[in-house]
């Protein structure tokens, strides 16, 4: 449900960027989304369909690029990519880890004219 406000922020940001770059229309929004965020692409698309009419995004589609969860163990120093957000070092089993990536949620670029 929280994707409504998130998608609203996304549409606002893209409209501002379109304005700044003198785009009449946006066709593609390249969105980077970390695996360790609680945002679901399906829900974002659902709300996007509802929010985009009568904006510069009305003909746009969102291209999602997922960013994996990369962690660094503070104990053994090894870096690993993990599939599930279980914050444990696959190398030594310790749980004192630093999240290097996977929490991102940003617009990488927009395409339009």
């Amino acid at each position: 449900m929280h994707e409504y406000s998130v998608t609203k922020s996304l549409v606002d940001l893209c409209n501002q960027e379109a304005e700044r770059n003198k785009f009449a229309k946006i066709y593609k929004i390249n969105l980077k989304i970390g695996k360790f965020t609680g945002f679901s692409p399906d829900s974002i698309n659902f709300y996007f369909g509802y929010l985009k009419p009568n904006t510069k995004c009305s003909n746009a589609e969102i291209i999602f690029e997922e960013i994996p969860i990369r962690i660094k163990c503070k104990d053994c120093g090894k870096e690993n990519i993990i599939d599930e957000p279980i914050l444990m070092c696959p190398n030594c089993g310790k749980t004192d880890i630093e999240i290097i990536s996977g929490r991102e949620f940003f617009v990488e670029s927009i395409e339009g004219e």
Partner: protein
Amino acid sequence: MRRVEVLKPVLVSNKQRAQENRKKFDSMNSLVINIIASPGAGKTSFIYRVVEHFKRNYRVLIIEGDIRGQVDSECLLKLKVDVIQINTLTECHLDAFMIAQVLPKIKKKYDLVLVENVGNLVCPAEFEIGEDFKLAILSTPEGDDKPLKYPLLFHLSKVVVINKCDLLPYVDFNLKKAKAGFKKENPKIRIFDVSAKTGKGFEKVYRFLERELKVKKKGFKK
């Protein structure tokens, strides 16, 4: 067709607003706690005990977030402290803008601001509101597997309170397993086992909060 780089976070505005809220709270030396739990875990009962204890020596404000209604506010008003109700209507969490909207209503300086978020273990974790820290509550009937199911919240919380420990003889909840799960998501997390019904375990919570209040009062900045 042209392509331009944007490289801007979608939630930048919420983060910025949260920082502005934090500045305002810091200027008043208010300790702000964002309390997050699922519906029925005992957020209001927890707040009730904490406020009862601290209201004698500290100025306390409660900000109450609910989708609709003011059942909790009405209950908390019995404590004779100030309560501000926010109804989020369609939203399943409080965000920095909703807090910013009620900031002008805060006319006094408060030592302790307890924010009861909307009952939900998922979304409230994503949105900073300007808090000093997040306090999560998990109640024993919900099950000891929750730390593994909702990793983000427990990863970001400074404190987790395991509530309804008076029900431990009747529910399948392994305290040891739950605690190991919390530590796995967040090795630094502080864990308290309590019963908001009987009051058991609250002395430790009070001592912890007392320390946090003192640190904040001295104008400690993170």
